């Protein structure tokens, strides 16, 4: 059963230079106990999407529908969204140091949500916070709960963030680039931790990342975003085995590989489009090596059943992937 259903989501920001459409008609679902990886480069709209699910956009125009466990987020009242935040949906962010309050002890920060949503006493919430710190693998949790964020290492801080997110036993965990600010060795540990927690608690996870390596490690399904739109959606094995969209192929081609013949990496030509001046037709066509005339005028939609791609070429089978 799907826990999160996003339908026709559009997020627009209006600034002095005009209106930018950061997310453009995005639809996807995340099922209970599954992990969906959203991949895309900077500005593809993946973080904007995650913030929209939390209702954290202040000055954006959000349209469409976001259904979290039966509650509609778009257009919901303040209190309705607050009841979801931290309780049903929890989020961890890219930079754990700046995402933790520098002036409060971590135990207190973890306990805060529990006290808010469950009305737990200070003592009970603290005890629970210490247990959570133990669960996320922080040694000596009773002691460390009294420390401040700056007294932890980067990886430990992200563990604290995860403990904080788990405080109210949410159904959905949104992880927005959770390993980007960490050392490579620590990245692997954090991903392992997220995967373990996901398995043990039956959480649905939305993993936002620009790193296909992260997706390969933790995701069940993958959604590839480009210029605010979904360009491909498949389960993780199918995506890596048989990428259908030229952009996905480009992403995979720009990855270094340990197996196979050593060769030069192939970057994707051109630069990401500006959301202020979207291209006509397929948003990827200016950079696409395989484009045909239709691409410049007609915007492709996701086609297919289990493995979907938004590409005229795949749809007309002119290219064998």
């Amino acid at each position, binding site marked *: 059963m799907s826990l999160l259903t996003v339908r026709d989501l559009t997020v627009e920001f209006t600034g002095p230079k005009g209106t930018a459409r950061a997310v453009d008609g995005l639809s996807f679902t995340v099922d209970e106990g599954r992990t969906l990886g959203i991949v895309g480069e900077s500005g593809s709209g993946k973080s904007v999407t995650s913030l929209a699910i939390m209702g954290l956009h202040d000055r954006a125009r959000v349209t469409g529908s976001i259904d979290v466990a039966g509650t509609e987020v778009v257009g919901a009242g303040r209190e309705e969204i607050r009841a979801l935040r931290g309780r049903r949906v929890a989020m961890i962010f890219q930079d754990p140091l700046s995402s*933790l309050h520098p*002036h409060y002890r971590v135990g207190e920060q973890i306990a805060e949500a529990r006290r808010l949503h469950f009305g737990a006493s200070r003592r009970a919430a603290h005890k629970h916070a210490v247990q959570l710190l133990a669960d996320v693998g922080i040694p000596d949790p009773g002691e460390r709960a009294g420390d401040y964020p700056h007294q932890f290492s980067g990886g430990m801080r992200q563990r604290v963030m995860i403990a904080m997110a788990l405080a109210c036993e949410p159904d959905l965990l949104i992880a927005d680039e959770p390993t980007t600010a960490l050392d490579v060795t620590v990245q692997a540990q954090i991903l392992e931790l997220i995967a373990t927690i996901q398995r043990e608690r039956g959480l649905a996870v939305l993993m936002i990342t620009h790193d296909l390596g992260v997706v390969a490690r933790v995701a069940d399904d993958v959604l590839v975003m480009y210029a605010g739109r979904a360009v491909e959606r498949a389960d993780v094995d199918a995506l890596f085995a048989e990428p259908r969209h030229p952009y996905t192929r480009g992403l995979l081609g720009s990855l270094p590989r340990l197996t196979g013949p050593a060769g030069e990496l192939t970057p994707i030509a051109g630069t990401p489009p500006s959301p202020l001046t979207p291209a006509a037709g397929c948003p990827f066509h200016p950079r696409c090596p395989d484009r045909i005339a239709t691409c410049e005028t007609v915007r492709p939609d996701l086609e297919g059943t289990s493995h979907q791609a938004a590409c005229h070429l795949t749809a007309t089978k002119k290219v064998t992937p």
Partner: protein
Amino acid sequence: MIRYIALRLAGVAGVLLVICAVTFVIFFVFPADPALQACGKSCTSERLAMLHHQMGLDRPIWQQFTDYLVGIFAGRTYGTGPLAVQCHFPCLGFSYQNNMPVWDLMMQRLPTTVSIGIGAAVLWLVGGVTVGVVSALRKDSLLDRTMMVGTLTSASLPIYFTAMALTVLVVQIGGLLPYSSYVPIAEDPIGWVKNLILPWVALALLYAAMYARLSRASMVETMAEPYIRTARAKGLPERTVVTKHGLRAGLTPVLTVFGMDLGALLGGAIITESVFGLPGLGRLTIDSIEKSDQPVVMGVALLAAFFITFANLLVDLFYAVLDPQVRYQ
């Protein structure tokens, strides 16, 4: 922490010693001769020499300086015989013009200055920070713009102008309050407030503007921090996000400035006291400079320096309590 406090106290002592030395040198090279001032109109050269001796001015400068320093802690006696004057601990010199130890003279004036300073500080802190925080939360709104223009105007008006404008409007035309004079709070608390409200408002208007702008800038920055987003993501009500998470971090810088300003103000609000004719330390400073009563000028300078360095120390200690990242560094 105790080690830190001890080190800082030693630092304060060092700063005060340096200020002591500097004021002493300035005092010494000052052209006016205090003995000549004390000697009066019918001054003979013998009497002048005797006064020089009595004031210790015939001793080498370094001895005079050590005498001064020792006097601060042990008290001292100026001159000998029937002309001798006692200057008790803490002896910051003797004002021959007022025939009184400088310390006693300053202590007479201090309550007025403290009353003005504390009252104004409460007003400007509450007013300025409120305006700043509301502005920050309603950033770029009409309210924000209006208040920021208001603070700019209020900061641009010189204190003697606001002071006189207030006096004319409220006292002369409105007849709502008496002309300011100092009534001790113990004698008549209501009279104390009534008499001091105009100087408070005049000073507060000047400072509040700066505090409004400072706290606005600091709060705007803080509310854009990722940890504020984290607080919202927990589902906390916006009120808690602002008060518990925003103000805690956003107002810490304001505190630093506040300590320094309050310390400086306790040394005497010279212009405010003069305009309102209040007998505080600022007024004492002006009078003493006019009369070349240098022991007093020096004493007030030292007291002001003490307040500023001490306030600075308190702020740093308080900062360590508020911001755990500062601790033990």
